[in-house]
């Protein structure tokens, strides 16, 4: 069952035929983590804005969590959660007051604000006004708020931006844990490492058009070089060699080296998602 289904989606901000996104089509299965990757201004936020009802649907068909976006129902928002790239919490309210207020805006059972505050590493900060928070702390609170209604469809816009590596790792763990419980994730990012680590499939969007959708693994297989770099000790000296993983003679030579020589390092020449993105779209991610 598709959690999100997008067909022939177009959007023009000025309604003048200059489209920010054009002919966007994709489906996201229930329980999938889908990464939506592209440089700034590619159309990621526009697509996400339409899926979350922030932007009005102009052309195309979109269903989210079984709801048609054309006639959006407030009930849909009981099922979805949204973590914004730009933190947007009430600066004159404390962390607890912020989450407590949002917890009252849903018709479903909501999570305990304190539990969520602790989950994102803000323990002890619950009674501090968020105006006194650092950018990273606000971002974590915005992320925590997106879980307040136990969403089955979770939209995450750059969830680890501006966070230090340890906190970012915690956030990734939370995403993985929620996904294990069946939550579908729509992850918008230009960070290829987080996409590579988390996503079941990724979509590359450039200039409002989706160029490619596939799993990171398939993309690496398809676009990566089928080579292995080996460093070994030969006659007391460090020697570097590269072998094809396809040619029989290279495979035999590699087997021989592994059997006879002292191997120092051995790496397959997999392409990174970023390299694949550049190869496919001809564009960088910044």
């Amino acid at each position, binding site marked *: 069952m598709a959690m999100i289904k997008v067909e022939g989606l177009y959007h023009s901000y000025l309604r003048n035929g200059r489209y920010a996104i054009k002919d966007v089509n994709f489906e996201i299965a229930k329980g999938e983590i889908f990464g939506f990757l592209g440089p700034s201004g590619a159309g990621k936020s526009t697509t996400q*804005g339409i899926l979350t009802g*922030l932007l009005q649907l102009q052309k195309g068909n979109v269903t989210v969590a079984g709801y048609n976006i054309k006639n959006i129902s407030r009930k849909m928002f009981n099922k979805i959660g949204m973590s914004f790239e730009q933190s*947007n919490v009430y600066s004159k309210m404390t962390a607890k007051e912020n989450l407590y207020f949002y917890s009252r805006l849903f018709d479903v059972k909501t999570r305990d604000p304190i539990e969520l505050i602790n989950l994102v590493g803000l323990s002890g900060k619950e009674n501090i006004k968020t105006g006194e928070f650092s950018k990273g702390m606000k971002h974590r609170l915005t992320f925590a708020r997106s879980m307040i209604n136990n969403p089955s469809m979770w939209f995450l816009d750059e969830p680890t931006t501006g966070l230090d590596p340890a906190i970012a790792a915690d956030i990734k763990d939370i995403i993985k844990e929620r996904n294990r419980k069946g939550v579908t994730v729509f992850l918008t990012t230009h960070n290829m490492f987080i996409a590579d680590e988390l996503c079941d499939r990724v979509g590359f969007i450039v200039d409002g058009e989706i160029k490619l959708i596939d799993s990171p693994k398939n993309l690496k297989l398809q676009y990566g070089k089928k080579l292995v770099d080996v460093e070994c000790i030969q006659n007391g000296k460090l020697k570097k060699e590269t072998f094809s993983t396809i040619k029989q003679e290279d495979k035999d030579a590699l087997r021989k080296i592994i059997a006879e020589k002292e191997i120092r390092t051995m790496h397959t020449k997999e392409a990174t998602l970023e390299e694949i993105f550049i190869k496919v779209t001809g564009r960088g991610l910044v």
Partner: protein
Amino acid sequence: MKLLSSFKKELILASRSFYFYIEVIFSLVILAILLFAVPEEISTTSTQYVYLNLPKEVKEIYTDTMLESVPGIEPEEVELEADGKTYDAQLIATDEEEFYIVDSEEAVRNLAYSEQVIGAVIELDDSNQLYCRYYLQGYESTRLKNLLSILFNENMGVLEERIENQEVVSLTTDYEPLNDRENTLPPLVAFSSCLMGMFIMASYIFLDKNEGVIKAYAVTASPIWQYLMSKIFVVLVTSVVSGLIIVMPIMRFRINYGLFLLLLLSTGFFASSLGLLIASFYNNLAKAFGAIYFLIILLMVPAIAYFIPGWDPFWIKIIPTYPLMQGFKEIILPKGDIAYPLIASAGFLAGGIIVFAITNIRFKKTLSV
């Protein structure tokens, strides 16, 4: 439940922002001005300095005639100061006029200049007829100058006869006017409670737009209209508080507060909906300032008609603040027309609902990513 939560949240935010306190302080300042600076009856006593450049006998006849016209008033010897000099004068004071007879033309000129009032020198012409020369300030209108020349230099007998024969018929016999302090209340309540509400509402929205919290609200199961309505509730609370601060100490329990609150709430609803509508077109207060300023000036125009009853063109009456002020006036008048504020309240409520509906659509359409 969601609406109540939003309302509670808005109350918390209002109590922690300075806009709420600005409106309350503004109301207290207005009250202080009304109580300590605006008198219940503004004095209309006029002051005149006159030098009688007449022969002694004529001078005595003139003074006696003047005193006969104000029976019971005795002239008082006083000293006046102007331009560093002291002048002796006779003061003939009535409820409406303070008439100083000084002993030189120099005194008239200096006193008229320093006190910025009209001075007069009364003399005899070649045919022994009284005539008057005036010392004016220079900014008097031609109409006033003409009036002054008629008043003294034309045949006073004719004027007096005509005034005495004028028949004045009062159209309403059941009318008790407000004192000057009470009369200033309707425009002050209109501007401090309602127009400030419009401005404050727009400010609240721009604060939220700046923090991006509207987007966060838009992805909850609560409809946008509840978000907007909760803000209106808070502005209404502020309007009621500031309205009562101004009105209660002056009117005490002499007015129908039910009717007053009804009009205050309906106009507050209309004004804050208008503030929301304006805010839906702009991203911040700086960009919206022109529109808000224009609207406030436009809405203040009926105050001119309020204080100049003779100037009452039709187009003024369709500006919402006109029925707003007239409605408040009818409420505080001892025998005011109850129907007027009721009809005005219904009109503001209907207008507010329409503006609110348009605003709700605009907010849904203008959310951005």
